Protein backbone atom coordinates (compact mmCIF):
# COMPACT_ATOMS: atom_id res chain seq x y z
CA UNK A 1 0.00 0.00 0.00
CA UNK A 2 3.02 2.28 0.37
CA UNK A 3 3.72 4.48 -2.65
CA UNK A 4 6.96 3.93 -4.52
CA UNK A 5 9.86 6.17 -3.49
CA UNK A 6 9.63 8.02 -6.82
CA UNK A 7 6.02 8.93 -6.06
CA UNK A 8 7.05 10.47 -2.75
CA UNK A 9 9.60 12.53 -4.67
CA UNK A 10 6.83 13.73 -7.03
CA UNK A 11 4.58 14.69 -4.13
CA UNK A 12 7.37 16.71 -2.52
CA UNK A 13 8.11 18.21 -5.95
CA UNK A 14 4.53 19.47 -6.09
CA UNK A 15 4.94 21.07 -2.66
CA UNK A 16 8.19 22.71 -3.83
CA UNK A 17 6.44 23.96 -6.96
CA UNK A 18 3.73 25.54 -4.82
CA UNK A 19 6.39 27.05 -2.54
CA UNK A 20 8.07 28.60 -5.58
CA UNK A 21 4.76 30.00 -6.85
CA UNK A 22 3.94 31.54 -3.46
CA UNK A 23 7.42 33.06 -3.13
CA UNK A 24 7.41 34.43 -6.68
CA UNK A 25 3.97 35.97 -6.19
CA UNK A 26 5.18 37.61 -2.97
CA UNK A 27 8.27 38.93 -4.75
CA UNK A 28 6.14 40.37 -7.58
CA UNK A 29 3.54 42.17 -5.47
CA UNK A 30 5.77 43.08 -2.53
CA UNK A 31 5.38 42.23 1.17
CA UNK A 32 2.78 44.95 1.87
CA UNK A 33 0.24 43.70 -0.67
CA UNK A 34 1.08 40.09 0.19
CA UNK A 35 0.24 40.78 3.85
CA UNK A 36 -3.11 42.42 3.13
CA UNK A 37 -4.82 39.17 4.03
CA UNK A 38 -3.81 37.80 7.38
CA UNK A 39 -3.52 34.18 6.23
CA UNK A 40 -1.28 34.80 3.24
CA UNK A 41 2.07 35.47 4.96
CA UNK A 42 1.63 32.12 6.76
CA UNK A 43 1.20 30.28 3.48
CA UNK A 44 4.72 29.34 2.44
CA UNK A 45 6.24 29.03 5.93
CA UNK A 46 3.28 26.82 6.86
CA UNK A 47 3.82 24.68 3.79
CA UNK A 48 7.54 24.34 4.58
CA UNK A 49 6.70 23.34 8.15
CA UNK A 50 4.10 20.81 6.92
CA UNK A 51 6.66 19.32 4.53
CA UNK A 52 8.93 18.88 7.53
CA UNK A 53 6.18 17.01 9.37
CA UNK A 54 5.57 14.71 6.39
CA UNK A 55 9.28 14.00 6.17
CA UNK A 56 9.00 11.99 9.40
CA UNK A 57 6.82 9.23 7.88
CA UNK A 58 9.22 9.22 4.93
CA UNK A 59 12.02 8.61 7.43
CA UNK A 60 10.03 5.86 9.15
CA UNK A 61 8.75 3.97 6.09
CA UNK A 62 11.56 4.46 3.56
CA UNK A 63 14.54 3.60 5.73
CA UNK A 64 16.61 1.04 3.90
CA UNK A 65 19.83 2.00 5.68
CA UNK A 66 20.96 3.98 8.72
CA UNK A 67 22.26 6.78 6.51
CA UNK A 68 18.81 7.12 4.90
CA UNK A 69 17.27 7.46 8.34
CA UNK A 70 19.74 10.15 9.39
CA UNK A 71 19.29 12.03 6.10
CA UNK A 72 15.48 12.06 6.18
CA UNK A 73 15.44 12.74 9.93
CA UNK A 74 17.75 15.75 9.57
CA UNK A 75 15.61 17.05 6.68
CA UNK A 76 12.52 16.78 8.80
CA UNK A 77 14.19 18.72 11.60
CA UNK A 78 15.66 21.55 9.51
CA UNK A 79 12.48 21.93 7.43
CA UNK A 80 10.39 22.24 10.58
CA UNK A 81 12.96 24.60 12.10
CA UNK A 82 13.08 26.88 9.04
CA UNK A 83 9.31 26.80 8.52
CA UNK A 84 8.68 27.32 12.24
CA UNK A 85 11.13 30.23 12.42
CA UNK A 86 9.45 31.93 9.45
CA UNK A 87 6.05 31.34 11.07
CA UNK A 88 7.34 32.92 14.28
CA UNK A 89 8.71 35.92 12.39
CA UNK A 90 5.45 36.39 10.47
CA UNK A 91 3.41 36.16 13.66
CA UNK A 92 5.73 38.53 15.51
CA UNK A 93 6.70 36.07 18.23
CA UNK A 94 10.24 36.15 16.88
CA UNK A 95 11.84 39.53 16.25
CA UNK A 96 15.47 38.95 15.34
CA UNK A 97 16.26 38.73 11.65
CA UNK A 98 18.94 36.18 12.49
CA UNK A 99 16.17 33.58 12.70
CA UNK A 100 16.16 33.75 8.91
CA UNK A 101 19.53 31.98 9.02
CA UNK A 102 17.52 28.81 9.58
CA UNK A 103 16.60 28.78 5.87
CA UNK A 104 20.18 28.70 4.51
CA UNK A 105 20.91 26.17 7.25
CA UNK A 106 18.03 24.03 5.97
CA UNK A 107 19.36 24.29 2.42
CA UNK A 108 22.89 23.38 3.50
CA UNK A 109 21.80 20.43 5.64
CA UNK A 110 19.50 19.22 2.85
CA UNK A 111 22.31 19.46 0.31
CA UNK A 112 24.73 17.55 2.53
CA UNK A 113 22.09 14.94 3.36
CA UNK A 114 21.35 14.40 -0.35
CA UNK A 115 25.04 13.91 -1.10
CA UNK A 116 25.77 11.73 1.91
CA UNK A 117 22.81 9.38 1.61
CA UNK A 118 23.38 8.72 -2.09
CA UNK A 119 25.88 5.90 -1.96
CA UNK A 120 26.09 5.28 -5.71
CA UNK A 121 28.06 7.11 -8.38
CA UNK A 122 26.56 9.78 -10.65
CA UNK A 123 25.81 7.48 -13.62
CA UNK A 124 24.61 4.49 -11.59
CA UNK A 125 20.98 5.35 -12.38
CA UNK A 126 18.83 8.43 -12.85
CA UNK A 127 17.91 8.65 -9.17
CA UNK A 128 21.60 8.57 -8.17
CA UNK A 129 22.41 11.29 -10.70
CA UNK A 130 19.54 13.46 -9.52
CA UNK A 131 20.47 13.02 -5.87
CA UNK A 132 24.00 14.27 -6.64
CA UNK A 133 22.67 17.21 -8.70
CA UNK A 134 20.07 18.06 -6.07
CA UNK A 135 22.67 17.95 -3.31
CA UNK A 136 25.03 20.34 -5.05
CA UNK A 137 22.14 22.58 -6.13
CA UNK A 138 20.87 22.84 -2.57
CA UNK A 139 24.38 23.60 -1.31
CA UNK A 140 24.98 26.30 -3.93
CA UNK A 141 21.49 27.75 -3.59
CA UNK A 142 21.96 28.14 0.17
CA UNK A 143 23.73 31.40 -0.72
CA UNK A 144 20.41 32.89 -1.89
CA UNK A 145 18.50 32.66 1.43
CA UNK A 146 21.76 33.67 3.11
CA UNK A 147 21.75 36.83 1.00
CA UNK A 148 18.11 37.42 1.89
CA UNK A 149 19.06 37.53 5.58
CA UNK A 150 21.06 40.67 4.86
CA UNK A 151 18.98 42.09 1.98
CA UNK A 152 15.43 40.83 2.58
CA UNK A 153 13.84 43.26 0.10
CA UNK A 154 16.16 42.56 -2.84
CA UNK A 155 13.83 41.63 -5.70
CA UNK A 156 16.57 39.73 -7.55
CA UNK A 157 17.28 37.55 -4.52
CA UNK A 158 13.57 36.99 -3.81
CA UNK A 159 12.92 35.98 -7.42
CA UNK A 160 16.02 33.76 -7.51
CA UNK A 161 14.86 32.08 -4.32
CA UNK A 162 11.48 31.33 -5.90
CA UNK A 163 13.00 30.10 -9.16
CA UNK A 164 15.32 27.82 -7.16
CA UNK A 165 12.25 25.94 -5.96
CA UNK A 166 11.02 25.54 -9.56
CA UNK A 167 14.39 24.04 -10.53
CA UNK A 168 14.40 21.70 -7.52
CA UNK A 169 10.81 20.66 -8.27
CA UNK A 170 11.73 19.88 -11.89
CA UNK A 171 14.60 17.67 -10.72
CA UNK A 172 12.38 15.80 -8.28
CA UNK A 173 9.73 15.26 -10.97
CA UNK A 174 12.42 13.67 -13.16
CA UNK A 175 13.21 11.14 -10.47
CA UNK A 176 12.43 7.47 -11.21
CA UNK A 177 13.25 4.52 -9.01
CA UNK A 178 15.12 2.69 -11.75
CA UNK A 179 15.74 4.50 -15.01
CA UNK A 180 18.76 5.33 -17.19
CA UNK A 181 20.51 8.67 -17.15
CA UNK A 182 21.99 9.80 -20.48
CA UNK A 183 21.92 6.18 -21.60
CA UNK A 184 23.70 4.89 -18.49
CA UNK A 185 22.09 2.38 -16.15
CA UNK A 186 24.13 0.06 -13.97
CA UNK A 187 23.09 -3.61 -14.21
CA UNK A 188 23.20 -3.59 -10.40
CA UNK A 189 20.38 -1.04 -10.29
CA UNK A 190 17.75 -3.56 -11.37
CA UNK A 191 15.09 -3.65 -14.06
CA UNK A 192 12.95 -0.55 -14.71
CA UNK A 193 9.41 -1.36 -13.59
CA UNK A 194 7.62 0.91 -16.08
Amino acid at each position, binding site marked *: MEPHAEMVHWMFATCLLLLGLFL*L*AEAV*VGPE*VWARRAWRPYLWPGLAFTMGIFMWPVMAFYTNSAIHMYAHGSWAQVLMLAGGAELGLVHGRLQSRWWRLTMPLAFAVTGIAFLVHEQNTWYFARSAFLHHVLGWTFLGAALIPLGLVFKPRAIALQSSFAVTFFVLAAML*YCDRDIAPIFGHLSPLAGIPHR
Partner: protein
Amino acid sequence: MSSTYVRSLPAARTRRSRRAQVISLLGPATIAAGFLWALLQPYRLTLLHPMHQGFWWLVTEPPLLVMVAGVIFALVVARPLLVDLAETEQ
Protein backbone atom coordinates in the same frame (compact mmCIF):
# COMPACT_ATOMS: atom_id res chain seq x y z
CA MET B 1 -0.19 71.16 -13.69
CA SER B 2 -2.35 68.88 -15.78
CA SER B 3 0.69 67.77 -17.78
CA THR B 4 2.30 66.44 -14.58
CA TYR B 5 -0.65 64.12 -14.00
CA VAL B 6 -0.84 63.15 -17.64
CA ARG B 7 2.81 62.17 -17.60
CA SER B 8 2.80 60.25 -14.34
CA LEU B 9 -0.42 58.23 -14.70
CA PRO B 10 0.44 56.02 -17.71
CA ALA B 11 3.77 55.01 -16.19
CA ALA B 12 2.12 54.05 -12.91
CA ARG B 13 -0.64 52.17 -14.72
CA THR B 14 1.88 50.25 -16.81
CA ARG B 15 3.80 49.21 -13.71
CA ARG B 16 0.59 48.14 -11.98
CA SER B 17 -0.72 46.21 -14.89
CA ARG B 18 2.56 44.36 -15.32
CA ARG B 19 2.47 43.12 -11.76
CA ALA B 20 -1.15 42.07 -12.13
CA GLN B 21 -0.38 40.42 -15.46
CA VAL B 22 2.46 38.39 -13.99
CA ILE B 23 0.31 37.20 -11.09
CA SER B 24 -2.62 36.30 -13.32
CA LEU B 25 -0.29 34.43 -15.71
CA LEU B 26 1.52 32.31 -13.12
CA GLY B 27 -1.31 29.83 -12.58
CA PRO B 28 -2.27 29.34 -16.26
CA ALA B 29 1.43 29.09 -17.20
CA THR B 30 1.91 26.31 -14.65
CA ILE B 31 -1.19 24.50 -15.91
CA ALA B 32 0.07 24.90 -19.48
CA ALA B 33 3.47 23.49 -18.49
CA GLY B 34 1.80 20.42 -17.01
CA PHE B 35 -0.39 20.02 -20.09
CA LEU B 36 2.61 20.31 -22.40
CA TRP B 37 4.45 17.71 -20.34
CA ALA B 38 1.45 15.39 -20.62
CA LEU B 39 1.52 15.81 -24.41
CA LEU B 40 5.26 15.15 -24.61
CA GLN B 41 5.25 12.16 -22.25
CA PRO B 42 1.73 10.67 -22.34
CA TYR B 43 3.04 7.39 -20.86
CA ARG B 44 3.44 9.21 -17.54
CA LEU B 45 -0.33 9.64 -17.38
CA THR B 46 -1.69 6.46 -15.82
CA LEU B 47 -5.23 7.70 -16.43
CA LEU B 48 -4.76 6.96 -20.12
CA HIS B 49 -4.31 3.25 -19.31
CA PRO B 50 -5.96 2.87 -15.89
CA MET B 51 -6.75 -0.86 -15.94
CA HIS B 52 -4.94 -2.98 -13.33
CA GLN B 53 -3.16 0.05 -11.86
CA GLY B 54 -2.75 0.50 -8.13
CA PHE B 55 -4.10 3.42 -6.11
CA TRP B 56 -0.85 5.37 -5.99
CA TRP B 57 -0.21 5.08 -9.73
CA LEU B 58 -3.62 6.61 -10.34
CA VAL B 59 -3.16 9.40 -7.79
CA THR B 60 0.42 10.49 -8.42
CA GLU B 61 0.82 11.43 -12.04
CA PRO B 62 3.48 14.15 -12.38
CA PRO B 63 1.96 16.18 -15.26
CA LEU B 64 -1.39 16.17 -13.46
CA LEU B 65 0.29 17.19 -10.19
CA VAL B 66 1.83 20.20 -11.96
CA MET B 67 -1.57 21.15 -13.34
CA VAL B 68 -3.19 20.75 -9.91
CA ALA B 69 -0.53 23.03 -8.39
CA GLY B 70 -1.34 25.63 -11.05
CA VAL B 71 -5.07 25.36 -10.37
CA ILE B 72 -4.57 25.66 -6.58
CA PHE B 73 -2.38 28.72 -7.05
CA ALA B 74 -4.76 30.38 -9.52
CA LEU B 75 -7.86 29.85 -7.39
CA VAL B 76 -6.57 30.12 -3.83
CA VAL B 77 -3.75 32.65 -4.13
CA ALA B 78 -3.82 34.58 -7.41
CA ARG B 79 -7.52 35.48 -7.42
CA PRO B 80 -7.66 37.20 -3.99
CA LEU B 81 -4.17 38.61 -4.53
CA LEU B 82 -5.28 40.37 -7.71
CA VAL B 83 -8.19 41.94 -5.82
CA ASP B 84 -5.83 43.19 -3.10
CA LEU B 85 -3.35 44.44 -5.70
CA ALA B 86 -6.07 46.42 -7.49
CA GLU B 87 -7.29 47.92 -4.20
CA THR B 88 -3.78 48.91 -3.16
CA GLU B 89 -3.05 50.52 -6.48
CA GLN B 90 -6.27 52.55 -6.44
